Structures are given as C-alpha cells and as structure tokens.
C-alpha cells in the first residue's frame, strides 16, 4: 500500500517523509500563529484602552455577514478534511468532488466578504477624514477590522490557489501518490479557518449588547 507514495530526495521510506511534511507544515503554522498573535495584541491593547468608544465602533460591524461567512468557511474546512482522507484512501472521485466544494465555498466566502466591504465603505466605516463615528478608539477598531480581514483574505486566497493546484495535479497524476501535498494544503486551509473562528467573536460579537 505504501510502496506507491512518491518519494522525495533525502527520505528512504514514505512514513518518515509523511512525518517530515506534517512536522514542517505544523512548524510553519506555529509561525503563522505568532504572526496573527501580533495583530491580536493590537486588538487586545486597543480594546483594553479603548473602553466604551471601542465597543461603539464594534457595534457597526455586519453581524449576519460575519455569521454566514463563519459557517461557509467551516463547511469548506470540512470538505477539505474529507478530500484529504479520501486522497489517502485513493478514492479519486470523492477527492475531486470535495476539492471542488472547497474551492467553491472559499470563493463564496470571498464574494460575501466583498459585498460586506462594499457595504462598509458605503457607510463611511473606513478610518479617515469622513469616518462615520468620532475619531479615536472606534477608528482603531475599524483599523483592526480592515487590516486583519485583508491579511486573512490574502491567506485564504493562497489556500484556494493551493486547492486549485491540487485539482490541476489531479488531472495528471494520482493524488494518492502525492498525499503529503494534499495533507499540507489541508493543514494550511484548516489554519485559515481557525484564524477566522478566532476573529469572529472579536469582530462581530464584541459590539453586540
């Protein structure tokens, strides 16, 4: 069963390479965790010092857009998990369907995000001279909102590019042989989902009283 895994240079047997790819990906996700810890520290500091005005700013966020997007991304993450397990078990059609599902749900998430951005811009919620509320902590919440959702969107786009690449590979070579690539992409997308799960209460539930 394991003899047909594609081997890369320094490794002799596939099980060892599997652990290496998983360990390498998780180490990279540790760096991503610290990367987002930086901007969460900004949120914690702004919320601690901002007091009431910060929560007024948070009240302006679009609750239903956020909740819908969280559900979409969770479903996409599940689809990716099924795709990765199906690839390991060499069930080609299920893997292909689930990868397409992930791609579709990811693009849907970005679309919903785009609509939300347009609504926010329409309501003058971008920090600047014509900011809707009084400048100060409220403006800081929206500075966090735009910065973190933009960085998260970039990460999700990279994840969707990886999924597209898997679908392109699927047409030329058996994904079962390249299961470690599928696993790496799945881990990355699960992490993007984890960041959004952490962001959801901070962005959309903070302002609700």
């Amino acid at each position, binding site marked *: 069963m394991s003899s047909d895994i594609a081997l890369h240079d320094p490794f002799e047997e596939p099980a060892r390479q599997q652990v290496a790819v998983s360990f390498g990906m998780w180490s990279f996700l540790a760096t991503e965790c610290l990367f987002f810890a930086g901007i969460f520290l900004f949120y914690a500091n702004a919320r601690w*010092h*901002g*007091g*009431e*005005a910060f929560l*007024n700013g948070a009240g302006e966020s679009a609750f239903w857009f956020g909740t819908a997007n969280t559900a979409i991304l969770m479903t996409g993450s599940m689809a990716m998990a099924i795709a990765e397990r199906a690839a390991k078990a060499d069930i080609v059609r299920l893997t292909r369907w689930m990868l397409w599902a992930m791609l579709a749900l990811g693009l849907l998430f970005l679309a919903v995000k785009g609509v939300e951005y347009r609504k926010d811009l329409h309501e003058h919620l971008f920090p600047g001279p014509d900011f809707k509320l*009084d*400048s*100060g*902590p*409220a403006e800081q919440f929206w500075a966090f909102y735009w910065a973190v959702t933009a960085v998260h969107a970039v990460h999700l786009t990279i994840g969707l590019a990886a999924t597209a690449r898997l679908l392109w590979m699927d047409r030329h070579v058996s994904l079962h042989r390249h299961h470690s690539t599928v696993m790496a992409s799945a881990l990355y997308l699960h992490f993007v989902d984890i960041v959004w799960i952490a962001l959801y209460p901070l962005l959309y539930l903070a302002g609700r009283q």
Partner: protein
Amino acid sequence: MLPDASTLAPRIDHLLWLLIGLSGAIVLLVVALIIGFSIKYRRGSTAKRGQLPGWLARDVEIGWTAAIFFVAIFLFWFAATTETSQYEVPKDAMEVHVVAKQWMWKLEHPNGRREINALHIPVGVPVRLVMTSQDVIHSFFVPAFRIKQDVLPGRYTETWFQATRPGTYHLLCAEYCGTDHSQMTGGIVVMPRADYARWSEGTDDTGTLAQQGARLFQRLGCTGCHGNSARVRAPSLNGVYGRMQPMNDGGFRRADEQYLHDSIVRPQKDVVAGYQPVMPSYQGIASEGDIILLIAYLKSPDGGDVQ
C-alpha cells in the same frame, strides 16, 4: 570626566564602579586563564596532561554556575534598591512643564516664565518634569544629572532631579526624532537661590500658568457646559483634580493630569457616570501648551468654579 551634579549621580557612579570592578575581575580571570592555558598547554609542550578526575570537572562547573547566579541576583537586588528610591517624587518638588517639538524644547515654569532650549533652576530644590511631545518620541537627557526619560506624544511622562552643584549642563535629545535630532540640544542652568529669585523676578505680565489657563477656559468656551450656570448637563470641574471619578462603563478613574489631557483630546474614551458622550474633541484646537495651561488652571484652588 562627567560632573555629578544631582543627588542621584553619586549613587549611579557607585553602582557603575561596582560593576566595572566585578566585570574587570571576571574579564581578567578569563583572559588570564585563556592565555595561561594556551601557552602552558601549547602543542608539543612537555606540560603534564594526565586525565582529569570526573568529579573535579563537574564540581568546578556547578560551583562556577552557582557563583555567577549569586552575583547576578546580588547585582539585580543592588540595582533595584537604587532605582526604587528614584521612583518616589518628593512632594514639595517644583513643577516644570516640558513640551518637546521636532527639534526644540519648550519649558514652562509654574510662574508662567517660558524658555526655549534652556532651563534655569535653583540649586538644591527638587524639580519635577511633566513632559509631553507634539509630534514624535523625544527623550529628555541630562548626562550630568544621570536622568533620561522618553517624551511620548499623547501622554505625560515624568521624571525628577535635585541639582546639587551650580553650573551649566548639557540638555540632549536621546531618542532619534528626525533630521535635526542632533541639533535638539540645550542647557540646564543651575543657579544659587538668590540669583534664581532675581532671574525669575523679570517675568513678563502674562501671569502664572493658572491665570493664563483661566482666560483660556473662557476663550475656548468650556464655561458653556462646565460653568455653574450652564444649561447643558456636564460634570462640574470645581476641584476635580485628584478626585476618583465613577465611569459610565463601571469602575473608577483618578482625575490625574493624564485623564484630564485625554478628556480634552478624546472625550468619548472615558465618560463620567451619568453623562452622555456629547463633548466635542479639542484635538488640533487646543495645542499641548494650551492643555497644560487648562490643567494648571483646574489644579489651582478655585479652578473650574466660574459662572
């Protein structure tokens, strides 16, 4: 060498020479060991090279580690005790307000006297510096007094010193602040008390900080809401300085200089309990200098008690 012209300076020098002594001893020990061992046991020399007893190596190692750990803790304790005495500002200190601006220092005495890049102070009187910046981070550094404190925009930072020797000492900006960072220097002139009294006589007629603050309190329209006969509901500011204020979102805040500064510049941040956040922000209208005058007025005995 560097004059020690403040009460803090001798203590800092004692700590310095203690550390120089300790470090010098350790460096000499290490260098002597290296040179000694290298020459004695150079390749081909006939020095005795028997096997080292195992326990000796380990015990020497643990002994050295424990010694260094003890020295480190002792130094931390010694430095910490020197520092804690510097944290309490003496009550009777003379207050000087400092406003740092890109590439100049503006200093204001309590009696309203203003100076640019210079500070005249009497010898032997503790001076408390309340500092803020109008643009970037600067740092108030007087090497002769061994004091340095960054000056942050949007916040009051404090330090204090007590000059012990008359003379003129360098005032330098120690935090990089742009093109003319190295020209942002000045002088601290420490004068005997008699000379200082004569110097500060010649104040022009602008009056003390509190009097200037009172005029500004009227001109900026604060009385419209905070005056006793005002129609709009706003907290009375009579004797507000130092009082614990209940906040709208629960909890208490002491109305110190920082709170008064923030309430003028960002009124929505901490609203007093029972009031609406309706006060407009004076960001850009009242400069840092004006805010100092307003706060000096509110700290004066009958501050805020006006029709």
